[in-house]
């Protein structure tokens, strides 16, 4: 049985995403949103999926992995190739969900292949091995012919739209938030907090580690499929370690183990470099500086205090206290 607090917290997360979508949709329908803004909606959604799924391994399982872009690329290529070959056979309504499912499954299979040997490692070692995995995937894709090699995979139908991305986000939130709250999720966080104690309690460490790792890989693959169907060209070079690190930045900025935080951070990090375009030559410099400032401020105790005061949690606590008082009276 879930506590009232977690149910409310989950509802806030869903509500936030739905509200954001409704606002964007309304603005889009009334033509108030610029093309530049609209073209960023799908990338924002993709980054949300990536950040939240990575949060499962980094935040909840407590294992630092840097291979998320690798899983994303595997899923992207699988889904895009599927779409290219079935473009004339299947209608969009069947093809695109199947492509996403396939991309997710292929990425999950890779998650198992990588996870079984690699999850024996922890900390820095795991980070380095997963980083290497991402680079291996990239090199392999470049050297294969059916992936288009270095020149990239072309001709993927452009099926990704922001309403579809929104639906995928909701499905992902449903799966991951329920997983985290479930018995499995508690086992995963137990491994993070004290591995030895968790093992002593009879938790199958390998199984739960792999579970979190594979679920994260699955959604990274789905995000990859969305990404691949958003542009007419897919190049392996996009999925380098910089991308893995960027996703990690979103997770760290949003707060380890905070799904809502990951969503907000993914949105901010995606918009920021585009919003700074007016700075022209100084754009990437200022982007980096802003990132540093955000990280410093985010970690400062005073800001944390202010954030806690503004957070819905505080207000829920205040409100529930009031209600309790009324009931007692």
């Amino acid at each position, binding site marked *: 049985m879930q506590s009232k607090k977690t149910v409310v917290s989950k509802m806030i997360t869903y509500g936030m995403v739905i509200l954001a979508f409704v606002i964007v949709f309304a603005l889009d329908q009334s033509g*108030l*949103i*610029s*093309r*530049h*803004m*609209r*073209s*960023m909606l799908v*990338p924002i959604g993709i980054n949300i999926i990536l950040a939240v799924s990575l949060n499962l391994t980094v935040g909840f399982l407590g294992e630092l992995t840097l291979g998320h872009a690798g899983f994303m690329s595997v899923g992207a290529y699988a889904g895009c190739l599927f779409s290219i070959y079935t473009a004339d056979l299947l209608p969009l309504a069947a093809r695109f969900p199947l492509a996403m499912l396939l991309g997710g499954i292929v990425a999950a299979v890779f998650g198992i292949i990588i996870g079984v040997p690699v999850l024996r490692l922890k900390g820095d070692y795991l980070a380095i091995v997963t980083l290497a995995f991402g*680079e291996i995937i990239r*090199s392999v894709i*470049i*050297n294969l012919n059916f992936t288009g*090699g*270095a*020149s*990239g995979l*072309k001709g993927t139908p*452009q099926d990704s739209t922001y309403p579809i991305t929104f639906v995928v986000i909701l499905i992902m939130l449903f799966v991951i938030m329920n997983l985290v709250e479930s018995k499995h999720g508690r086992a995963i966080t137990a491994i993070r907090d004290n591995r030895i104690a968790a093992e002593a309690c009879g938790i199958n460490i390998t199984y739960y580690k792999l579970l979190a790792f594979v679920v994260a890989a699955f959604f990274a693959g789905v995000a990859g499929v969305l*990404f691949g169907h*958003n*542009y*007419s*060209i897919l*190049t392996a*070079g*996009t999925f380098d370690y910089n991308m893995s690190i960027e996703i990690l930045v979103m997770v760290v900025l949003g707060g380890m183990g905070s799904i809502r935080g990951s969503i907000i951070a993914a949105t901010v990090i995606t*918009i*920021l*470099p*585009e*919003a*700074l*375009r*007016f700075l*022209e*030559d100084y*754009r*990437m410099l*200022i982007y980096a500086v*802003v990132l540093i*400032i*955000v990280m*410093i*401020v985010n970690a*400062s105790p*005073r*800001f944390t205090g202010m954030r806690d005061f503004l957070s819905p949690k505080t207000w829920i606590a205040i409100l529930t206290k009031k209600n309790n008082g009324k009931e007692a009276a």
Partner: protein
Amino acid sequence: MKKYFAMMMAAVMAAACFTGCGSSSSTEGTEGGDGATTEGGATIVIGGIGPLTGDYATYGISAKQGAEIAIEEINEAGGVNGVTFQLLFEDDQADPSTAVSAYNMLMDDGMDVSLGAVTSGACIAVAEESQQDGILLLTPSGSQKECTQYDNSFRICFQDPDQGTYSAEFIKDNGIAQKIGIIYDKSNDYSVGITDSFEAKAAEIGLEIVTKQAFTDQSNTDFSAQIQAVKDAGAELLFLPIYAQEAAYILTQADKAGLETIFFGVDGMDGILEKIGAENQALTEGVMLLTPFAADAQDEQTVAFVEKYKAAYNATPDQFAADGYDAIYTIAAAFEQTGLSSADDEGFNEAMIAAMTEITVDGLTGTMTWTADGEPSKSATAVVITDGVYKAYGLE
């Protein structure tokens, strides 16, 4: 102190939001020749996209600067049909997804004609978008085949495979060598495309490729293994369809390894003189490259362009700058051909696209005409580096 930081950050973010979200955000960008623009006169907005930051920044910056010079010249001369031109140039870091965002931003800013993107991958992504909008796309340097796969897209540079074909023909026709070694960048689409067509043509006309060595962008500083393989294979000529930075490494290391072949590059090798540095300039002696533009050419047009470019940016223009310059003049010529008076005229886009196949442009990179599939037809020329100067082949 932290409060100050937070406030500063908030201010930056707020400012960023306003500029980013506004549908008609600032359009000052990089307008050239403000002094000459007639007040209230119609303006055609040309939108360029290219890497201004990141690994490939030199190409984007060159193309942008070349285009700026052309804009300035045209506007100073009073524009075309009374219309002046304005260039807006956005950074894409050579990344297709960023390029699409930049394209949409430029559309928000009222772009009438697109310069596509400077790099191929980004240009393919942009071409897809521009095709939906129906505007003319003229990429200065997007060399992959798919950059111009739609009816609305054209290019200034050669298509990748053409360079490979021309190189093989040139080597054969001039009897430069018979046994050829290749070192190419397997992770780079440009390099792979040229290598493939070079191989195909070489097989057809009877050149012997004795060895083909690959590297990737992860291993592009040490070429000793590849150079040794070329040496062992007994190549007379080493074909280098790669960019200048790697070519500079190869020339230096080949010298140390005692490899004495002829070196033959393509347009990506342009800029080798700066990359290799003055102290190693002797190594470039006799290096040949196939390039449509040489900054040291003595024709009037090139001399004038190089002079202006040096004065404005304190750098020697490379081929990308010339491509950018030619792209602007081509757009101006196409506009003149349409006979329209502004970009708001009905049928502007269709007229511009139709005009592309009717015009002949005498540019820095040769005299060009275009076919309906977007390919320029111009002659390929090779230069030989002599005493640190590009000299046309046969005249050195």
